[in-house]
């Protein structure tokens, strides 16, 4: 993206984006825990995760990472296509 910022502005922006990345990773991690815990843990007759729950969580994390990767690729493609379309319209 052509941001039209000076070098100093870019540096300031970079710092803010790093903070945003940390925040986004924290959200992503939190959503992952919520999602896999909700889907996999339903037995409260003991206080330790059962073998079945452990397996489910582990598969859930793997599948969620693949989902994240795949959707990230699609998102990048679609976003690039949309940006092109919009800048063609604006010219």
């Amino acid at each position, binding site marked *: 993206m052509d941001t039209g*910022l000076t070098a100093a502005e870019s540096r300031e922006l970079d710092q803010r984006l790093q903070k945003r990345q940390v925040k986004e990773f924290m959200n992503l991690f939190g959503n992952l825990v919520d999602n896999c815990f909700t889907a996999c843990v339903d037995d409260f007759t003991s206080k330790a995760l059962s073998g079945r729950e452990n397996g*489910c969580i582990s598969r859930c994390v793997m599948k969620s990472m693949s989902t994240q990767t795949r959707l990230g690729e699609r998102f990048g493609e679609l976003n690039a296509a949309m940006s092109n379309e919009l800048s063609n319209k604006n010219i």
Partner: protein
Amino acid sequence: MSFLGFGKPQPTSAERISAVENELKVVAEMHSRMVKICTLKCIDKTYREGELAKGESVCLDRCAAKFFESHQKISEQLQKETAARGGGMGF
């Protein structure tokens, strides 16, 4: 992606940075909403497998495309309706 009107020429340095930051924030939030919604629509919640099934992968690709199309469509309709009703941002 400028459909929310960010990225227009802005005088001060702080405003220029904010504008780019906002634009990236919009994209990041859209991404995170897409992941949540397409996971819900496409991924089997029993997590019997740790790999994405073929059907799940295809579903994710189509869900991403439909999500983008919906996003753009809703954005355009919102602009038209808001203009027609003469309303501000609160509808």
